[in-house]
C-alpha cells in the first residue's frame, strides 16, 4: 500500500529553498486537472511540502480565501473590486494578488455527423445560442461554409446547468463580439430566458452533446474529444482553436484598471481583430495574499506559485490538462508579482 510515485524530482524547489508544510487552496474546478499536475510536480520536488486543492468552484474558493479558510484561491475570474477591499482583512493592507495560472480555449463544439469543422462568426454563434437559428442548414451557417453539406437537423443548444466560469467567459465573448444579438447580462449562469438542454459540468455538456445529434455547446477545449469544433471569425479570418491562438488572445489582453501595480487581472479583448488570436478563452487565476503570517507559509506559497507559472509547471499542466501555457512575458510578470509576497509585519 503506497502512493503512486510521480516523476522523481530533485529535492529542492525552483527557488532553491527547502520548503515544508501544507498549502491549502480551494477554487475553480476548471483548473483541477492542471492542479493535480502541479501538486504532483511540486510535491516530488519538495518532499516535506504538501498542496491540497479542493475544486469546490471559483465562488466557493474566493469565499474561503477571503474568510481565511484557504491560503490561495483558484478562480475563473479575478477578484472584483469589493472583494479586493475585503481581501485586506485577511491579507494585510496590500490585499490580494490575482495571477493568471491556467489558460484554456473554450471550444464551440457540436455533434453533426461527418462535419467536424465549421466556420462561424460571432453573430451567427450568438444567434445559434439564442435560438434565432434553429436548423443546421440555415443560410446564415451555410453561407460561411461553402462546400460543406449541412443537414436540416434541428439545432439543440446545450448549456451548463451549474454556474460556471466557462459560461461567464463564453457569454462575455458573445456580448463583446456580437453585442447586437447577445443582449444578455454577462454572468456565470446561463440566461434564464434562453433555457435549453443543459447539463452539469464540462463533462456533462460534452456527454450530452456527444449523445445528441445536432447538439452544440461550449466547453473547455481539452475536454471535447472528437466533437466538431467551430473556427471563429476574428478580423477577416476564421481562426482555428489552438493553444497558441488562445495564448495569443491572452497576450493582447490589457490589465484591469485601478489595480495595484503587480496585480495581473486581465481584461480580455474579446472583439480583437488580431490575426491568429482565438478570443473565446478562459483565464483562471491563482489568488494569493500579498502577505502571510509566517515565513514558512510565505516560502511555501512562493515556491508553489513560482513553480506553477514556471515553464516546467506550465508544461506539466499542458501535458495533463491540455490547456495553453502562459506566454513567457506573462510568466515573467507573474514571477515578479510572486516575488513580492512577504511576511506580514
Amino acid at each position, binding site marked *: 500500500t503506497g502512493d503512486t510515485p510521480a516523476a522523481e524530482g530533485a529535492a529542492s524547489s525552483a527557488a532553491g529553498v527547502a520548503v515544508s508544510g501544507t498549502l491549502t487552496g480551494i477554487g475553480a474546478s476548471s483548473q483541477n486537472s492542471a492542479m493535480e499536475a502541479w501538486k504532483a510536480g511540486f510535491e516530488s520536488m519538495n518532499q516535506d511540502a504538501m498542496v491540497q486543492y479542493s475544486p469546490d468552484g471559483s465562488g466557493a474558493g474566493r469565499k474561503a480565501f477571503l474568510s481565511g479558510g*484557504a491560503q490561495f484561491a483558484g478562480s475563473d475570474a479575478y477578484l472584483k473590486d469589493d472583494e479586493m477591499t475585503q481581501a485586506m482583512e485577511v491579507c494585510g493592507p496590500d490585499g490580494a494578488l490575482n495571477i493568471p495560472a491556467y489558460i484554456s480555449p473554450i471550444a464551440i463544439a457540436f455533434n453533426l455527423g461527418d462535419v467536424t469543422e465549421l466556420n462561424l462568426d460571432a453573430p451567427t454563434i450568438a444567434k445559434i445560442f439564442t435560438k434565432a437559428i434553429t436548423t443546421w442548414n440555415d443560410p446564415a451557417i451555410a453561407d460561411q461554409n461553402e462546400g460543406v453539406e449541412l443537414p436540416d437537423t434541428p439545432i439543440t443548444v446545450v448549456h451548463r446547468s451549474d454556474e460556471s466560469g466557462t459560461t461567464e467567459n463564453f457569454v462575455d465573448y458573445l456580448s463583446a463580439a456580437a453585442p447586437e444579438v447577445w443582449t444578455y447580462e454577462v454572468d456565470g449562469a446561463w440566461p434564464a430566458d434562453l433555457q435549453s438542454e443543459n447539463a452539469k459540468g464540462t463533462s456533462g455538456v460534452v456527454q450530452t452533446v456527444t449523445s445528441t445529434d445536432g447538439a452544440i455547446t461550449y466547453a473547455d477545449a481539452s475536454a471535447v474529444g472528437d466533437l466538431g469544433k467551430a473556427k471563429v471569425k476574428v478580423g477577416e479570418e476564421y481562426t482555428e482553436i489552438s493553444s497558441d491562438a488562445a495564448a495569443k488572445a491572452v497576450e493582447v489582453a490589457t490589465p484591469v484598471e485601478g489595480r495595484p501595480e503587480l496585480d495581473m487581472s486581465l481584461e480580455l479583448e474579446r472583439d480583437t481583430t488580431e490575426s491568429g488570436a482565438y478570443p473565446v478563452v478562459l483565464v483562471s487565476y491563482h489568488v494569493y495574499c500579498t502577505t502571510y503570517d509566517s515565513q514558512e507559509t510565505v516560502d511555501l506559497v512562493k515556491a508553489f506559485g513560482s513553480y506553477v507559472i514556471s515553464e516546467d509547471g506550465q508544461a506539466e499542466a499542458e501535458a495533463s490538462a491540455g490547456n495553453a501555457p502562459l506566454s513567457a512575458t506573462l510568466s515573467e510578470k507573474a514571477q515578479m508579482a510572486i516575488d513580492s509576497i512577504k511576511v506580514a509585519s
Partner: protein
Amino acid sequence: MAANQTLQRRQSQLTRGRLPSYAIWVVVAASLILGAAISSLVGFSVVGWAIITAIVFVLAATIVTAVAEGERKAKDKLVTFLVYGAFLIALIPLVSVLWTVLERGVPGLSYNFLFTSMNGVTGAVDNQAVEGGTPVLGGAYHAVLGTLQITLWATLISVPIGLLTAVYLVEYGAGKNLTKAITFFVDVMTGIPSIVAGLFAAALFTLLFGPGTRTGFVAAVALSVLMIPVVVRSTEEMLKIVPNELREAAYALGVRKWRTITKVVIPTAISGIASGVTLSIARVIGETAPILVTAGFASSINWNVFSGWMSTLPTFIYYQILTPTSPTSPDPSTQRAWAAALLLILMVMLLNLVARFVAQIFAPKTSR
C-alpha cells in the same frame, strides 16, 4: 369400465367453479399473441411487446378469474399479479444500475486500484496509459479509508443518539410536550437537503475552530444530521409495534423499565431496527455534496479523521466523472469512477449482510 368410473366420479364441491391449472397457461399464450399483435400495430419492439403482454395478461387473467371464480378471487389474483409485478418492476432499475456499474466497474478493479491512492496520478499519467495501452494507475484506497472512517464516525454518533431518542419518544415521553417538539424537529430534519447539512456542519466548526476547519469528523457530523432522522423514525415505528403484553410480562416480573427496554423490547424489534440502521448508513455512505464542503478533497491517504482533508468514494467518483484527471482522455477517470462505485456497492452489501447477521442473533425465535 374405465369410462364408467370417470363418469361416476362426481365433481368435488370444493373445487367447483375453480379454473383448471392449465387455464393460466392458455391466458399466457393468448396474451403473448395478442401482445405481439398490438405491439406490431404500434411499432414492434421487444420491450413494447413485453409490456403489452404483461398488461394484457394481468387484465385477461383477472377477467377470466372473475368470470369463473368470482370477484373476490379475481381481486386476490389481481393483487398477486400486481405485487409480483411491483417486485419485477423494482428489479428493472436495480439490474440496470448494477449491470451498468459491473460492466464499467469490473475492468477497473485491480489490486492497484484497491491499494493505491491518487497521489501523484496526473493527467499525463492517464494520457500515457491511454496512448501506451498500459494499465491505468491510481486507485481509491484513500477514498475507501475516508468512506470507512467518516461513515464509522457518523454511525457512532447517530445510532446511539437516534436509538435513544426513539426509546425516549416511545417508552418515556408519550404525550409530553418535549416529545412533540422532538418529533416535530425530527420530521423536519428528514427533508434537509444533504448539502444544507454539510453547510451547517461547516459553519458550526468554523464557529468553533476557526475558518477552514475541514476534516473527516466535520463530514461525519454533517452525515449524522442526515442519518439521525432515519434512525429515529424507523426505530420509533419498530418499537411502537412491540406488543404491550411483552412489556407487561417483564414489568410483572419486577424488571426495571430500562432492562425491559434493553432486554425485551429492543430484541423483539431488533430486525427492524437493524434494517433502519443499515438503511440510514446506506443513505449517507453514498452522499457527495455534504462531504465536499466539509471534508475537502484529498488525493492521498489520511488516517486521521480529526485533522486534514479526506476523500470518500462518492466524492472520488464525483470528481473523477465531473473533472477527469485528464480532460483529453477521460476514460481512465471514468473507469476509476465506476470501479469505485462498484466498490462502494460491495461495501454496503457487506454491511447489509453484517447487519442481518446481527439482527439474526437477537431476532425473536418465531417458529410459531
